[in-house]
């Protein structure tokens, strides 16, 4: 009987300790776990996941880091969208942040910067003087506290991709830097009459590309980043007009039939397959076409988003908006600190950056040296050569909640369930 009691107690103790062990969160260095300085596991989150055009380059860069150091990268990358951003922020809030994060350096990063969950570059340089020494300090993004936290990656641009085959079939010329809104509407009508979708865009998932340029079209480069206090002020009126422009395009039937239920991937494929003519997207999409439609690159070109009002079609959205952060969690872990620093140095080295860059700006002191450009990359370079003005995205200056609300309501605005004024006021209330 005593034996049974002892057995029962032992079993119970094992069960309880098992449960409690699962609750523990030991932040002590994991050297005791058998990891040495050359056998460290780093959790890394980037936006180079899914169908990102730089996915292959990222994988190659990670592999070269692993081969050189013997460390292991646990990659939890995903495609960048509002849901991904929310998930990253949630990870910080719940204490499950990665060791290294490649993320936006704008208002999106504020929650974890203000919470002291990432380490600033000056602190890192105090221990590792050569950290990010190949970058121009003047191009490092500053947080609200004036400190630099992220080592910038390559920049981006957003502009209009066109399917030249569709345009040719419809007798429409490839838009030039003087492309007007009126001409665009005429072209859309001609394209629609031929049975194509003039615009490839999922208003359900990625209305932000069109919103950004529509705001530009109703203002100037100088006031593009003004945030409205309500739908009635000058900035608010710009946003309202922008939403109404998108609604006008929707009512005219220029978006795909299923634009309110399709994903971004579906509408991009529509464009790639030659069933839609225009697509506003970013520099990251160039490599997507290179990787997935390499034999059809001659069918695509990068042109200009139609302009109205004071804006010129040669003005675009662009800048450097993302970079590598080292989290406080990794920094405070002696086993991971050096590995995390080495990883960021590797990913932002001149050599690795040159594999990511084709036509984008960088913060590298020596500049990037991309290999020979293919047809589409050359088209992007040619279009960029004619760009007369660049401004950052206004959506990057508002809170995630504001953005999520605004873009979720685009579908309600275009279908008339909500007025543009209501949508702007609802979003601003979340900012």
């Amino acid at each position, binding site marked *: *009987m005593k034996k*049974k*009691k002892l057995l*029962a*107690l032992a*079993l*119970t103790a094992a*069960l*309880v300790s098992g*449960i409690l062990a699962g*609750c523990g969160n030991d932040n002590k260095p994991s050297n005791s776990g058998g990891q040495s300085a050359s056998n460290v596991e780093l959790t890394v989150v980037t936006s180079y996941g899914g169908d990102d055009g730089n996915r292959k380059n990222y994988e190659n860069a990670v592999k070269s880091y692993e081969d050189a150091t013997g460390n292991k990268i646990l990659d939890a990358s995903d495609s960048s969208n*509002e*849901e991904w951003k*929310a*998930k990253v*922020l*949630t990870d*910080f*809030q*719940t*204490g499950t942040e990665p060791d290294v994060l490649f993320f936006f350096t704008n208002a999106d990063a504020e*929650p974890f910067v203000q919470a002291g969950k990432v380490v600033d570059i000056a602190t890192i340089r105090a221990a590792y003087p050569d950290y990010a020494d190949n970058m121009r300090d003047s191009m490092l993004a500053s947080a609200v506290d004036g400190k630099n936290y992220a080592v910038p990656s390559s920049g981006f641009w957003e502009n209009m991709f066109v399917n030249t085959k569709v345009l040719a079939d419809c007798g429409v010329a490839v838009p030039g830097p003087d492309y007007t809104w009126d001409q665009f509407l005429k072209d859309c009508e001609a394209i629609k009459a031929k049975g194509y979708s003039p615009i490839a865009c999922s208003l*359900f*998932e990625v209305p932000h590309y069109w919103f950004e340029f529509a705001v530009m079209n109703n203002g100037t480069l100088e006031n593009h980043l003004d945030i409205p206090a309500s739908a009635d002020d000058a900035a608010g009126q710009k946003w309202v007009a922008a939403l109404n422009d998108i609604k006008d395009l929707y009512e005219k039937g220029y978006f795909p*039939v*299923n634009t*309110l*239920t*399709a994903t971004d991937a*579906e509408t991009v*494929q*529509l464009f790639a397959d030659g*069933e839609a003519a225009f697509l506003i997207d970013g520099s990251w999409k160039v490599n997507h076409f290179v990787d997935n439609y390499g034999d059809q690159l001659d069918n695509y070109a990068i042109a200009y988003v139609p302009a109205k009002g004071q804006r010129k079609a040669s003005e675009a959205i662009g800048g450097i908006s993302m970079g590598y952060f080292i989290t406080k969690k990794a920094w405070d872990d002696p086993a991971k600190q050096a590995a995390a620093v080495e990883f960021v140095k590797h990913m932002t080295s001149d050599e690795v950056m040159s594999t990511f860059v084709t036509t984008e700006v960088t913060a590298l002191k020596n500049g990037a040296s991309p290999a020979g450009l293919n047809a589409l990359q050359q088209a992007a370079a040619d279009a960029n050569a004619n760009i007369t003005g660049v401004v950052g995205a206004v959506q990057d200056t508002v809170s*995630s*909640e504001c953005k*999520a*609300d605004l873009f*979720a309501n685009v*579908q*309600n605005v275009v*279908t008339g*369930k909500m007025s543009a004024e209501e949508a702007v006021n609802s979003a601003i209330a*979340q900012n």
Partner: protein
Amino acid sequence: MGPTLYRKKGPLIVFLLPAFLFLILFLYYPFLQNIWNSFSHITGLGTPAQGLNQPWYGNYVTLFTDPKLRTALGNTVLLTLCTVVFQVGIALILALLVDSIHVGAQLFRTLYFFPIVISATALGLMFNLIFLFNGGMLNQLLSNLGLISQNIDWKDTDHFLFTMFAPVMWQYVGFYFVILVTGLNNISQDLYEAAALDGCTGFSQVRYVTLPLLRNVLCTCLVLAITGALKVFDLPWVMFGAGMPQDQGWLTGTYMYDQTFNRGNVDYGSTIAILIVVLGVLFSNIANRVFKPRDYI
């Protein structure tokens, strides 16, 4: 030895304690905290509450005025009803059919149960391909059969309920099918033979012998189906995301997730979570009363 073990309650309590502690830690404490959160102002997961809401019951007022929540509730109730009719109904028909065959019964059991072991995410992606607008399997099939001249948007406002509910129904039919087949196997063959001698065969046998004897199993299935339907989240989320189409595709689960994780409205998400729990308790109580198992069978 045996009886003494049960006379002494000490060891039993010791064995019950870990599970009890586990529930306290991971169910009841979070649940109570969730109630408190619903009165607080919280703008992000893991971030501390910034005091109480103004007024403190504000989220509960919003519950009654939020049109998206009304949509979510309507869809969830409809899904629950469809679950009863189609999930358990189809499972019952399949179970009766499989029970009446002798060759291949095991094969059908495996085939019908198979969807259960596939993750909802994988199923969601698969059904996304089936219902795809351009080049989707269903549109291609209908087009090749000459039944449609233009592709159907299966996720638009006219079709989304079917597109959302059909995969959910399909996924769990096998689960209830297996339970019902097991129940059918427990019915003695002697009863069927006696019924046959009395001239009761075919449909009459099902009506007067099988169904009455299967009642308790059927009741369990119905209660499980109803409470399960209230918690459906993963498959609709993978297929429809945030309220597609045009905020008409919300379920209580997907709306709670969106408010909590995507909108940072954690306190309102907590309030919706409480509503889901209240509905679950209410529905399962009603189901338990309506489909009360009988002891005399």
